[in-house]
C-alpha cells in the first residue's frame, strides 16, 4: 500500500460502518441473544475456551483480574431492594459486540484491530504491539490482554493438553490483545467452501462455537444482510436497526412490546449483537 493508494482509497479504508454507497455485501455477521432463553449455564463460555485456545489462567491470575474468558456470563440481581431475589437472576452473555463504529478500531496506533468488509471487528494478533488503547476505549470491556506468555506458563497447557489446541487459530503469546472473533476461523472456512461452489453462505452453514453448543438455543448467529437468515428476521421483527443510536420504536410513548435492544447503543458504537429482554411472568 503506497501513499498514493492510501490517498486514493482513503474513503474506502475509513468506512467503519455501512453507508448508502457501500452497503455490506454479501455478508454482515451479526448475532441475536435471547435473554429469556439464556439459563446462564456457561456452556457457551466453555465452548469458547475449547474452540479458541483460550488459556486457563489459574486462581492467582484470576484474582488479579487477568482472566481471558472471551465470553463471560454476567449475573444481575433485581435492584428493587427485596429481601430475596424472587424473580431470579438475569444472565447476560457478554462478548465482543463487533461494533460497526467500534471505539477500539480508531484508536489502535498500528491498525491491528480494524473492520472487515463482512462486518467483523477483526483482531490481528501479529500486528498488535500491545498498547492496550483498544481495551481502554472499549465501553464493554470485552478485550482481553495476554498479560503473561500463557503458552509457556506452567500448567496452562501441559504437554498433553497442547494436543487439544485448535490448529486453525493462532496461539497468542504475551503482549497481544485478543477478544471474541465471532469464530472467524469458522466463517473463513465456510466462505472458502462455498466460494468453490460458486455461491454465498446460507443461513446456518456457519455456526459460532457458543451458538452451536447453547442448550437452550438462546444465541442466533448469521448474515444480517441475507433476508433468509434467522438473525435478519429477528432484528427486523424486533425493529432494531444496525446503524441507529436510538431505535425508532423506543421513541414511542410508553415503550413497545418488542424485546430487542442493544447495550450502550447511545454511545453510538452500533453493536452487531442484539439482545432480547428477559421476560418475567406478571401473573405470579
Amino acid at each position, binding site marked *: 500500500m503506497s501513499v498514493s493508494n*492510501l490517498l486514493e482509497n482513503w474513503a474506502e479504508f475509513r468506512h467503519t460502518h455501512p453507508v448508502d454507497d457501500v452497503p455490506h455485501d454479501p455478508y454482515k455477521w451479526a448475532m441475536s441473544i435471547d435473554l429469556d432463553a439464556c439459563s446462564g449455564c456457561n456452556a457457551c463460555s466453555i465452548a469458547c475456551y475449547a474452540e479458541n485456545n483460550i488459556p486457563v489462567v489459574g486462581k492467582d491470575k484470576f484474582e488479579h483480574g487477568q482472566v481471558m474468558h472471551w465470553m463471560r456470563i454476567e449475573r444481575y440481581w433485581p435492584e428493587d431492594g427485596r429481601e430475596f431475589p424472587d424473580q431470579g437472576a438475569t444472565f447476560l452473555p457478554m462478548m465482543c459486540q463487533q461494533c460497526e463504529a467500534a471505539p477500539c478500531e480508531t484508536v489502535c496506533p498500528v*491498525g491491528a484491530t480494524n473492520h472487515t468488509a463482512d462486518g467483523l471487528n477483526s483482531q490481528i494478533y501479529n500486528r498488535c504491539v*500491545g*498498547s492496550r488503547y483498544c*481495551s481502554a*476505549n*472499549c465501553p464493554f470491556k470485552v478485550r482481553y490482554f495476554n498479560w503473561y506468555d500463557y503458552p509457556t506458563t506452567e500448567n496452562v497447557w501441559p504437554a498433553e493438553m497442547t494436543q487439544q489446541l485448535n490448529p486453525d487459530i493462532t496461539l497468542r503469546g504475551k*503482549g497481544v490483545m485478543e477478544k471474541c472473533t465471532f469464530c472467524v476461523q469458522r466463517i473463513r472456512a465456510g466462505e472458502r467452501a462455498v466460494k468453490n461452489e460458486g455461491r454465498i453462505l446460507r443461513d446456518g452453514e456457519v455456526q459460532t462455537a457458543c451458538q452451536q453448543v447453547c442448550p437452550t438455543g438462546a444465541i442466533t448467529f448469521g448474515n444480517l444482510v441475507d433476508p433468509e437468515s434467522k438473525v435478519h428476521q429477528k432484528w427486523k421483527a424486533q425493529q432494531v436497526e444496525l446503524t441507529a443510536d436510538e431505535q425508532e420504536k423506543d421513541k414511542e410513548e410508553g415503550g413497545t412490546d418488542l424485546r430487542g435492544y442493544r447495550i450502550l447503543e447511545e454511545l453510538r458504537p452500533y453493536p452487531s449483537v442484539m439482545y432480547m429482554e428477559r421476560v418475567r411472568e406478571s401473573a405470579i
Partner: protein
Amino acid sequence: MKDIREDIAWAKINKDVLKSLESPRNLYWVIVIGALLVFSVGVGCEIYQYNVGMGVANLDNPHVWGLYIATFIFWIGMSHSGTLLSAILHLMHADWRKPIYRFAEAMTTFSLMTAGLFVMVHLGRLWQFYYSLPYPNDRGLWPNFQSPLLWDAMAIFTYLSSSILFLFVGMIPDLAICRDNIHSGWRKKLYTVLALGWEGTDRQWRNFRVTYLTIACFLIPLAVSVHSIVASDFAMSQQPGWHVTSFPPYFVAGALYSGCAAIITLFIILRYVFKFEEYMTLPILKKTVRLTFAIAMVWTYLNAVEFASVWYSHDIASKDVLIQKATGPYAPYWWGMIFCGSVVPLILAFKRFQTNIPVLLVTSLLLNLGMWLERWMIVAPTYSHGYYPWTWDHDQFPSWVQWGMVFGSFGWFTLLFMVFCKVFPSVSMYEVKEMVYHRSLASKKLEVSGSQESVEGAH
C-alpha cells in the same frame, strides 16, 4: 533588590561557569551514583517485566494502563518548563530568564527522553514497537493515522528533536567560549566540533539571533500541541472522565505548572551544588515563584471548570467517576492532588516565602507530587469505574514493578541531567553577560536620570 549584579566582570562569568564543568565535587559523585542505583532499579524491573509479561505490573482487564502512562504524562508535562522559559519568555523579552533557561531547556530534553521510555515500557510487545512508526516496509502497511497514540508518538518525536535543536543552537556561543578556554582533552575536540566554527562575528550573531528566534517561534505551538495531543489520548476516547473537551488546555496548564515547580526545585539544587548564587539570584527565583503561583491558579480554575462541567452535564457515567474519585478507594490520592495542586501553592502568595529556600524546596516538591497524582487520577479511576458496571474493579493497585520503574525514571533523569551539567555550561554565559550589560546600561540610565531629577530638584 536586583536580580543580578551589574558589576560582575565578564571574565568572572566565564570563570564561574566553566568551573562548574571541572573537577566534580564529592557531592556530585554521590548524586551520580545515587541516580545510577535508582535507575538500575527501574532497569531491573523492566527486564523482569519484559521477560515475564506485563502481568507483573499488576495491570489487569479492564485496568490496562497504570502508572506508566500517568508518569509518562507527568514527564511530558515537566518538559514544558524549558520551552516556557526559553521560548515564551524569550519572545516576551523577559530577560530575567537568562541565567536559568539553559538548565530548563536541558530539563525539557531529558524529561522528554524519560517520557519516551514510559511509552516503550508500557507496550506489551516492546520488541515490535516499530510497527507504530510510519516507514515504507515489506508488509506494505502503515500505522493507523487516526489513532491519537500515533499523533502522540509523532508529536513527542518532533518536540524532542526540536527541543534538542533549540538547546543546541542556544548553546553555540557558549560552546565557543568553552572551546576557547579549554585547551586539551576530549572536551576540546567536542566543543570544537559543536561550536560549529563560531567566531562571534556580527554576521554570525545576526544569523544566530534569527535562527534562535525562528526555532523559538516554532517550538511554542509545538509545546502547546504536544500536550494537547497527549490530552487527546484521553479526550478523543469515549470513556467517562476522559472524554472532556477542556482536557487540552487543562493538560497544557498542568504541564506548565509542573514544569515551573520542577524549575524551582532544580534552581535551588543547582544553585547550591554548583555555587551559582551570583547568577541564580533570589529575585529571579521570586519571579519564577510568582509565575508558578499564577499558573497554579489557572490550573485550579481549569480543574474547577472540569468538575463543574461534569457535574452539571447529564453525563451520568462521568459524574459517577468524579464521585468515585472523591469518595472511592482513590479518594486519598485525589484529595492529595487537590491539596498539593491547589492549596499548597497558596504559600507562594506570601512574599515572605517567595525567597525562602527551604520552604520553596518543599513546596515545589509537593506541587510536583500533586501534579503526578493528577495524572494518575486521570488515568486510573476511569478504568475502575467505566461504562460497564460488571467490570468495575476497585482493588487494582500498581505492583512494585510499576513503582520501581517510576522510581527508576527519576534516576535516569537525574543521571542525564548530571552528565549534562558537567559537559555543557548549565548557565548561559553569553546571555548572562548580555543581561549584566543591559542592567549596567539601565542603572547608568537610572543614575543619569536620577541625577537629573536631583539637579532639577535642586533648582
